[in-house]
């Protein structure tokens, strides 16, 4: 009974943690990028202020927008929040994670994207359509690539449950493996594409020809925009946490974790996030945005790397 | 008098009277009456089967064909009554031709029945020749340039065929004479069949080739088929129905009788491969010829060639299953094809044309006629639940089990024909109506009666019929 209560507590803690940390992560990345470009940059806490400001603003909704347009931000936000909360950040002891394995998480993300794309075309403007159609094209490549990574991991560990994967990597001497490295690169590429970062998309632009995500949410304002933005931040959070828990799970509090383990876990997670933010910032400032139709090639490489990862697994297994 | 005599005398007598009768309505009525009477007399054969004589005999095989022939002749005569009335009203046929038509109709029935019940193979030959000459006259009935040309073609090709069949018949006698002895006995099929084991195999083989080519011309097997499409297209439609439904069967019956004789001789060649190749050729050729046809009657004439090919193929495969299928297909094809010709007759009278270009959307303008036509074509295409599906099912599976390499061309041929049938069906029965939409008073009963029988046969075959088929299938051998 107490164990159950602890587990529920941990799950709720996780929910809160990811929600609270997500804007911070975005703020850190922005600040770091600005610094690397020798600008001063906004304060690290600026995303929180932005969100708060948006929440206070009146929502302006296009005249012909349907209920779907207004419902989508809530659902999207909820789906991404849930997805992020199902990935172990500081502990693997998450009761809800049994309900959704890695494939189901991909499904949850797909649901969010589905709603977002529908919302994009709901108002009936050309920008919404551009964004939605490009987003779906990107996703059509990113999703298989992601699943190939899932395959690689699952083929090796015989599980698609993230806590189980993390525990396995923690407690077994996995060592350095070619296929894991390939899988990691592939996953990072997918993450970059899915979260709409450079070189696939530029979160800071409103230039018609290059927009993907921003074009899709162009009609949103006020609290709806706040939710959409928060959801996007959660998406980055999700991928960071995923990469962290699968490839560098060290520090995670295990099943029989005590309170100090949890503390270590949280600290380790913060450290990993910071490292991730630095890497992301370096990556983004050192590369140029690519044309939309180059994205398919970019993701094609990701898919190929995923496949290669699977094949290398056999090679190293049979060797 | 034996029932055999009755079924021959009634149509012969009818032919005589009708030749003299000048009133077309009465003549049509009398024609129908005589045909109906023949049918009922033929039914008597099922209960009272006479002993074979030197000239006539009745066994399981021909009794069902006699019943079938007299039945289709009977329904076709009902159809003919309405058809002829319209032809008279529109002035296409007049006095003498009409008298001739009705008389020849009965005479044709007579010759076909004679060919079926003849025990003497010489008599059978005479009957088939007479049937040919009769139909030649019928085909040229309209006296148009085209009909005369068709009749002439039919006549010349038919005559050569007949001559070759006679040579085959002589050769059979030649083979039988040393065993059975001189005279009429050596031409009786019952004797020939009983003692064929001791005949000279070489002569039998030679005879069969001539008989196959000779009677095969009448069956319409490729490449001997050339007369058939034109003869069907140019004659009066009731005659097309009888030609396709009956005369082809009669000729095939003759071939099969000789096949049975050969089957009894261990040294003789197996006719299977010859029949298989001719059957396949007919099937493929007719299937391809269907595509470019613009005349609806010629179209279905080619379909008859196709089905004769299937039947020949089935008998060529041999064995109880395939033989059964062939017999069943013979019967069902007769019924279905004549039903289709009944429909086609109506259609051409309604539209005033036989060209596909003038016919369209029948199910909209003439629902009863149109749907009847659909059912007929669906049946002839071999779709269930109509009966031809059953026979084609048996042919194909039997072929696959016994001669797998031949199943491929068989199925290809069936598919080619199927696609063509369907293409025309869509044009004729569906889509926007084309051509005249006038109504023609005519009875659809014969067509629906045939289709109903075909439908029932597809789901349920009565046990006695099956027993007959099976015993005949056993007789026909491998």
């Amino acid at each position, binding site marked *: 009974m107490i164990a159950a209560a602890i587990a529920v507590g941990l799950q709720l803690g996780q929910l809160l943690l990811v929600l609270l940390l997500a804007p911070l992560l975005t703020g850190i990345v922005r600040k770091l990028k600005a610094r690397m470009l020798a600008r001063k940059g906004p304060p690290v806490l600026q995303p929180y202020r932005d969100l708060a400001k948006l929440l206070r603003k009146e929502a302006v909704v296009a005249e*012909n927008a349907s209920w779907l347009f207004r419902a989508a931000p809530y659902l999207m936000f909820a789906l991404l929040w849930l997805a992020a909360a199902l990935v172990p950040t500081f502990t693997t002891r998450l009761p809800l994670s049994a309900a959704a394995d890695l494939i189901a998480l991909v499904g949850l993300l797909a649901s969010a994207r589905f709603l977002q794309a529908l919302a994009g075309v709901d108002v009936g403007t050309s920008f919404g359509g551009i964004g939605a159609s490009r987003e779906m094209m990107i996703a059509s490549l990113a999703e298989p690539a992601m699943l190939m990574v899932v395959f690689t991991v699952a083929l090796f560990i015989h599980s698609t449950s993230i806590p189980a994967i993390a525990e396995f990597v923690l407690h077994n001497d996995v060592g350095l493996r070619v296929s894991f490295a390939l899988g990691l690169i592939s996953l990072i590429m997918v993450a970059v594409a899915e979260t709409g970062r450079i070189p696939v998309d530029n979160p800071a632009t409103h230039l018609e020809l290059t927009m993907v995500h921003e074009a899709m949410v162009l009609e949103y304002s006020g609290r709806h925009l706040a939710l959409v933005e928060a959801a996007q931040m959660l998406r980055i959070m999700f991928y960071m946490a995923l990469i962290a828990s699968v490839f560098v799970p060290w520090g995670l509090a295990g099943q029989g974790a005590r309170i100090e383990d949890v503390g270590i876990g949280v600290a380790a997670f913060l450290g990993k996030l910071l490292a991730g933010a630095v890497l992301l910032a370096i990556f983004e400032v050192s590369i140029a945005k690519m044309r939309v139709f180059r994205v398919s090639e970019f993701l094609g490489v990701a898919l190929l790397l995923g496949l290669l990862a699977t094949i290398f697994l056999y090679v190293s297994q049979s060797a | 008098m034996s029932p055999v005599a009755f079924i021959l005398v009634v149509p012969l007598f009818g032919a005589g009277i009708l030749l003299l009768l000048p009133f077309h309505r009465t003549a049509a009525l009398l024609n129908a009456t005589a045909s109906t009477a023949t049918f009922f007399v033929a039914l008597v054969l099922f209960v009272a089967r006479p002993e074979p004589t030197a000239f006539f005999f009745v066994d399981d095989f021909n009794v069902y064909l006699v019943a079938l022939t007299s039945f289709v002749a009977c329904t076709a005569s009902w159809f003919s009554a309405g058809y002829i009335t319209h032809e008279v009203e529109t002035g296409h046929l007049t006095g003498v031709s009409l008298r001739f038509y009705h008389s020849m109709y009965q005479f044709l029935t007579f010759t076909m029945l004679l060919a079926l019940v003849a025990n003497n193979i010489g008599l059978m030959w005479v009957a088939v020749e007479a049937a040919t000459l009769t139909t030649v006259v019928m085909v040229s009935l309209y006296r148009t340039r085209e009909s005369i040309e068709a009749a002439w073609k039919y006549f010349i090709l038919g005559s050569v065929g007949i001559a070759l069949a006679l040579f085959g018949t002589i050769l059979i006698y030649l083979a039988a004479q040393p065993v059975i002895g001189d005279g009429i006995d050596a031409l009786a099929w019952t004797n020939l069949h009983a003692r064929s084991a001791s005949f000279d195999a070489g002569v039998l083989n030679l005879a069969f080739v001539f008989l196959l080519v000779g009677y095969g011309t009448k069956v319409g097997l490729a490449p001997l088929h050339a007369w058939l499409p034109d003869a069907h297209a140019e004659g009066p439609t009731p005659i097309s129905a009888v030609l396709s439904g009956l005369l082809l069967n009669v000729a095939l019956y003759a071939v099969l009788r000789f096949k049975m004789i050969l089957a009894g001789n261990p040294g003789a060649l197996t006719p299977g491969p010859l029949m298989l190749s001719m059957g396949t050729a007919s099937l493929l050729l007719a299937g391809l010829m269907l595509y470019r046809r613009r005349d609806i009657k010629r179209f279905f004439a080619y379909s008859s060639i196709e089905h004769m090919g299937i039947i020949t193929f089935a008998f060529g495969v041999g064995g109880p299953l395939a033989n059964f299928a062939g017999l069943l297909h013979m019967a069902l094809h007769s019924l279905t094809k004549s039903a289709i010709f009944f429909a086609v007759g109506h259609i051409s009278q309604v539209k005033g044309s036989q060209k596909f270009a003038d016919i369209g959307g029948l199910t909209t303008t003439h629902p009863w006629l149109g749907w009847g036509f659909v059912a007929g074509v669906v049946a002839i295409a071999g779709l269930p639940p109509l009966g031809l599906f059953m026979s084609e099912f048996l042919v194909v599976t039997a072929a696959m089990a016994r001669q797998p390499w031949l199943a491929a061309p068989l199925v290809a041929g069936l598919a080619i024909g199927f696609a063509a049938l369907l293409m025309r069906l869509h044009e004729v029965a569906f889509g926007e109506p084309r051509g005249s939409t006038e109504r023609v008073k005519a009875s659809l009963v014969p067509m629906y009666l045939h289709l109903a029988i075909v439908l029932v046969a597809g789901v349920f075959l009565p046990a006695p019929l099956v027993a007959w088929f099976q015993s005949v299938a056993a007789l026909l051998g491998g």
Partner: protein
Amino acid sequence: MLSVLLAVVLFLLALGIAGAVFGVPWAARIYAAAACACAVAAVAAVVFLVARADVPEALVLPVGLPWLSAHFRIDALAAWFALVINVAGTASAVFAIGYGGHNDEPARVVPFFPVFLAAMNLVLVADDAFAFLIAWEFMSLSSWLLVLSNHRRPGNARAAQVYLVMAALGTACLLLAFGIMAGPDGAYRFASIRDNPPQGAAAAIALALVLLGTGSKAGLVPVHAWLPLAHPAAPSHVSALMSGAMTKVAIYGLVRLLFDLAGPVPWGWGAALVAVGALSAVIGILHAVVERDLKTLLAFSTVENVGIAVMAFGLAIVFRTNAMGTLAALAFTAALFHVLNHAIMKSLMFFVAGAVEVSTGQRDLEKLGGLIHRLPVTATLALIGAASIAALPPLNGFVSEWLTFQAVLNSPSLPQWVLKFGVPVAGALLALSAALAAACFVRAYGMAFLGRPRSRKAAEAVEVAPSMRWAMAGLAGLCIGVGILPMVPAAAMAPLVRRFAGVDFAPLADGLSFGDFMLLAPVTPGVSSYSGFVVLIAVVAVTLASIEGVHRLATNRLRRAAAWDCGFPDPSPATQYTASSFAQPLRRVYASTVLRARDHVDMPEPGDARPARFTLSMRDLAWDAFYAPVERGVTWLAERMNTLQFLTIRRYLVFMFTALIVLLVTVALAK
């Protein structure tokens, strides 16, 4: 239960006759009766599966082939498929009560609709080759007539033509296969075939023919070409049955022959199924994603889904031949599950297409738009359907794809190297098709229901009749219900999984507790698991929490204004993104090679007053590679042969003479 099913079949046939006799005035009554009949059949199937699944019932009726009689039998396999098609059938009949009156010519639909249902049910209970093929072909025949009910529309005659010819070819393949299986003595009973399955080369030919015959009916690439022509051509409730139920009957045929009658099948056949399935899935959805006709799009999506199911069946064979029972059970469950799911969601989507067509007279996506405002109920139900067919959790489509992925993930334990490498590739293709399906249905839903109306008719659409809405609502409910409680159908199909995989589906191996019903853990608990129910609860809870939170933190003010559109709002609906433009990125990435998609832009010079034109061309490579050559070949041959009609008598005599001489020479040489 067999007698119940047969009684339903007879009743449906009688309804068909009633439909022909009484015609349109009785249409609603006939549809209602058909719905009841199908419901009874579905209940009977459930009862059989739950209570008597291990005791097949058989019956012999004195019809059909005389010496054989007609054999009927129901076992768990037949019962499962009977459940699937009768669920679709019931919904379709209910839908038709309101929809039937909108058909072009209702009198051409009413008689054949119940007959079509009867034929499909009859295929499932047939227990000899003859009865099976009669029912099979009868099914094609009745659906062909239904396709022809819209016979005056341009192109439908061609669709019907291609359809029935392909159906007949498929039947011919099965006929040949049965010929091999039955042997020269005509042992057509399934029991005899089961006892003496074909061996060696004969078995290989028979199985290839089976795959071709059933695959063409199911719509597998490359024998799918008829499907996107024929399914959309029929009235929508019939399209729903054709796509949702008839393709399932085809899959039933495949399973019956491959799993039951053919004896132990080598793993190569499983690999072939996996390959064909994966190919169908990708090609099908690629066609769908660029298609602008709503119903054709759905038909292509059927090709995709059939591919997925067949792929899962292939995996089941592969695992079974390698004696990996648990995994075979998993793959088999996934396949059967997908069969059920697709029947539900594809029927739903075709109903939606029907509703859209009824209310707007359009099914071209370029002419629709904004229907969510005019058809609120339909739009909501359509959203559920679209989401489930796009395989999104927590709906049902996701469950079967998830199970299939789980089966794919276990492929490395297979001993064959081809499969070790091949199955993950097939898995990648499956993932690709799932992602494309999402894109496809975002596009379909977005263009039809969202945005601004692109035509006057779309702007003036009105909500459809209650029965149509109820039918859609019922299926949408099933989408959710099956999605969150997948163990319920899994338990229903358990006997059949046990029969063909040898062992139980893992979660059902040692009984079921209430908790098991919540959690789907196909291999080992704790390794991979998914619970639609928990996900749904969690999503709802989190959403409610977000709404509550936002409403506490934020202002609730809301203002309606003109769309922002980056400051360039244009009132004309023509400035919206169209279906073609939405598909353009996908077309460029995938379809330029696979479908030979080409954009042609004709842009006039400045000063030239003529309008600019954009045309789009696409080709079906399967059509170009397989159908067109056959069509051309037959036409060419027919053209050549046609000269035979126009020869002189002398030439015909030459034929006769040649035939005679050839036969004589044959006889001379034969000695």
